């Protein structure tokens, strides 16, 4: 027991005050970054015309709602994962992602049935939205990386995946507000691809920086 006592004495002597890492504060900061991201994209690139005329296409509303749902669920989960806890369920993001994935399935089924809808899959406009969306998510991604590194994620792979999904969903939401494309195939495939690509990239790159 002696060696533990010596270690405990050493650690206790090093008991400098540390500000507790509040999950509520983390979520509030992430929400502020999301709002700032959306505001910046709209200010720089303008806003989708139909949003200003209040003639919103239901498909656009559904897409934005599902992206927002994923951003909230994954963002809340990622922030929470900085605090270790046995018994955490964290299935919200999984269901939000499942709901979002219905969009590309329906969009691609529509394209398969009516080749005329394939124009919405055009790479030029799609890649533009993908790149802008990924860039727009950088702020949220940077914050979540900082937050998780400061905390103690005990499942770094899952935390990375959630952080990427959240950042991508925030970026996708921002780009959906400014993107002039109306085609369901475009929204359902390219805009949904943004959180998926961001999540996959974070899952591959982030864990090494989150292990402790």
């Amino acid at each position, binding site marked *: 027991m002696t060696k533990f006592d010596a270690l*405990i004495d050493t650690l206790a002597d090093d*008991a400098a005050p540390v500000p*507790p890492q509040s999950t509520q504060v983390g979520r509030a900061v992430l929400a502020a970054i999301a709002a700032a991201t959306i505001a910046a994209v709209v200010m720089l690139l303008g806003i989708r015309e139909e949003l200003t005329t209040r003639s919103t296409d239901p498909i656009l509303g559904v897409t934005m709602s599902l992206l927002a749902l994923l951003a909230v669920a994954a963002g809340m989960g990622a922030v929470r994962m900085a*605090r270790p*806890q*046995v018994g955490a369920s964290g299935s919200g993001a999984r269901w939000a992602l499942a709901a979002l994935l219905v969009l590309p399935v329906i969009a691609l089924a529509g394209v398969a049935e009516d080749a005329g809808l394939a124009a919405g899959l055009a790479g030029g406009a799609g890649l533009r939205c993908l790149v802008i969306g990924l860039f727009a998510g950088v702020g949220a991604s940077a914050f979540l990386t900082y937050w998780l590194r400061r905390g*103690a994620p005990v*499942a770094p792979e899952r935390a990375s995946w959630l952080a990427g999904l959240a950042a991508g969903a925030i970026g996708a939401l921002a780009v959906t507000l400014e993107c002039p494309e109306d085609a369901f195939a475009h929204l359902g495939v390219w805009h949904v691809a943004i959180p998926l690509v961001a999540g996959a990239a974070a899952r591959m790159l982030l864990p090494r920086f989150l292990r402790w």
Partner: protein
Amino acid sequence: MILADADCRLLMDKAQGGDAAAYRALLGGCRDWLLRYYARRIVPQMFDDLVQDTLVSLHSKRASFDAARPFYPWLAAIARYRWIDALRKQTLTEELHESSAAVEHAEEAILSRLSLDSLLTCLPKAQASAIMLTKVEGRSVQETARICGQSEALVKVNVHRGLKKLAALVESE
């Protein structure tokens, strides 16, 4: 002495404010809890290093504790994380396999197996067996392969995949 959860929360709250005496008392209680916890989850030879590593982790990550939440689920998550990390790093040697210590601590080893059994139920049988034999009983890969009827390469793959799955279960199970 194992402290009550409410006492731990209070002590950690004070420790986060820089109270060294409260922190010392908390660390003492955590040490006792960890000794019991790992006694059921690791070969006896690894107790000391693992308890020390976990106490140091607790210290370096104490800001992540929220005093409004229960203390032991937080500590258990850190302990599991360090435990899986230790299993990953564990280097199997013939000395470990042939060590008399493994025989002397047969009772602890049984307890260790029982506890791991409960955790390993979430894994496929082949992965659980490979981890049990190599990481808990300290058998060589060759011997494990013979017992399980798997190739040596498959034993290594099963250990790797099993530990990866266990790591994903740290918080949820």
